[in-house]
């Protein structure tokens, strides 16, 4: 730190530069080593990520509050300026919604009666955990947010995360008191969806833009701008029927969807435990190994027939994420 002169300096300085150079090369190699390690996607990395989220979450929990109150203030100013227009819009919307309410009441009665007739088994009840957004990993490379709920609150990897407007993403890593949510716009996100009117199935694939792509659509699918996109519930990862977005553009080679949530205004989110756990967690994959030789029926009570990825053989289960 302080500058020293003298003979000591003359002896040690070449040694020091050599050491520096060696350390530099070593660090470069370890950076590439980390890339390989991260690419292998081991449980270890996931645990470390979850632990680091846990570590900063108390700080972020506190400092995100003033940020939220500043946001509230700007919102209030904006709202004051647009009070009249907003009121008019809400009045019109309210009229429409009242009509819809009547329709929904009629339909729900009819639905209940039809279900009785058909002895329909209703899907498992949703278990919702509400939590606050404490960090937004905004950036050009990843689309995810951190929430202040973890395994302490019953949040586990793979659960669906829902905002007021619709599906937001899924839990990528769950720490003890904080978790990271991978948004549907992230390049690693794939969600099985269905087009509301035509019931065409597809995948919603994020590509790190604000408009994720609709992929694996059949050639004869009828999709038009303005169509609503819902989760299909296939694969058992997400509950069916959660609104995701609205088709924003249809061109020859790409159908893009505008998500319903506004990312910069996310504050409270709900994590939905559907009880299906379609996305296999590491624990379930490991659990499925010993049951191969002994009793394979051990896993079946958790997974209803025909729903979810049933880990048939351990080698295929390892490929599922």
């Amino acid at each position, binding site marked *: 730190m302080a500058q020293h002169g003298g003979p000591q300096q003359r002896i040690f300085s070449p040694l020091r530069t050599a050491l520096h150079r060696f350390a530099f090369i070593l660090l470069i190699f370890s950076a590439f080593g*980390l890339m390989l390690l991260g690419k292998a996607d081991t449980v270890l990395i996931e645990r470390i990520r979850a632990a680091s989220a846990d570590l900063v979450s108390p700080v972020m929990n506190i400092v995100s509050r003033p940020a939220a109150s500043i946001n509230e203030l700007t919102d209030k100013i904006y709202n004051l300026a647009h009070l009249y227009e907003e009121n008019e819009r809400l009045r019109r919307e309210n009229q429409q919604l009242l009509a819809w309410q009547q329709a929904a009441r009629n339909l729900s009665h009819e639905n209940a009666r039809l279900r009785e007739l058909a002895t329909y088994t209703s899907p498992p009840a949703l278990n919702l955990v509400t939590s606050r957004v404490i*960090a*937004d990993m905004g950036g050009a490379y990843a689309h995810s947010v951190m929430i202040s709920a973890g395994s302490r609150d019953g949040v586990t990897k793979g659960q669906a995360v829902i905002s007021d407007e619709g599906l937001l993403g899924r839990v990528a890593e769950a720490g003890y008191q904080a978790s990271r949510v991978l948004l549907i716009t992230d390049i690693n996100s794939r969600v099985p969806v269905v087009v509301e009117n035509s019931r065409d199935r597809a995948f919603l694939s994020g590509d*790190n*833009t604000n408009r994720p792509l609709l992929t694996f659509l059949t050639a004869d699918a009828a999709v038009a701008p303005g169509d609503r996109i819902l989760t299909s519930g296939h694969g058992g990862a997400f509950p069916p029927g959660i609104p995701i977005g609205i088709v924003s553009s249809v061109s020859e080679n790409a159908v893009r969807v505008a998500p319903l949530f506004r990312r910069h205004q996310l504050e409270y989110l709900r994590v939905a435990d559907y009880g299906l756990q379609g996305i296999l967690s590491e624990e379930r994959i490991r659990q499925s190994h010993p049951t191969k030789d002994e009793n394979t029926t051990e896993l079946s009570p958790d997974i209803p027939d025909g729903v979810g990825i049933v880990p048939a053989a351990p080698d295929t289960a390892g490929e599922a994420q």
Partner: protein
Amino acid sequence: MKPGVWQRLDIIARGLFPAFSVFVLLLINLLPISVPLLSTASPALALMAVFYWSVNRPDLLTGVTAFLLGLVQDLLMGLPLGVSPLVLLLVQTGSASQGRFFHNKPFSVMWWGFALVAIPALLVQWLLSSALIGALLPIKATLISYVLTAVLFPIVAWVLARAQNSLLRYV
């Protein structure tokens, strides 16, 4: 009179300030801010601070520190592991060796220097992230991020310079 324990602890604490400031900027980067633009592309605050300290006090922010801070960034932001350590290490090494060039020059020279250094830094980050994810990431977000990073650098540098003058004058 021998130097007191507290005095020594004080010097160590002050010496850790540059690394700590980068960490704080990382956390600021994570804050959920309700500006539509910032949710798609955010300024690389850690990059600014690493550049600033490498130019002004390379003895207090070494390559190892830059590497570790990059690792923290990757872990916290859910980025492909290993990219930020490499980028920050290269920026630290490159800027520290050119540090003398910026001494006793007006601030605008340092600003230009940073704007130049940030181009390859963000390009390498974009390229390696794309390669590791296995798909070309949209370059537009990186471009916006670059512009934000270059434009906001004076603010961060001003704050860090104030801190340097008040905390690190005798360290």
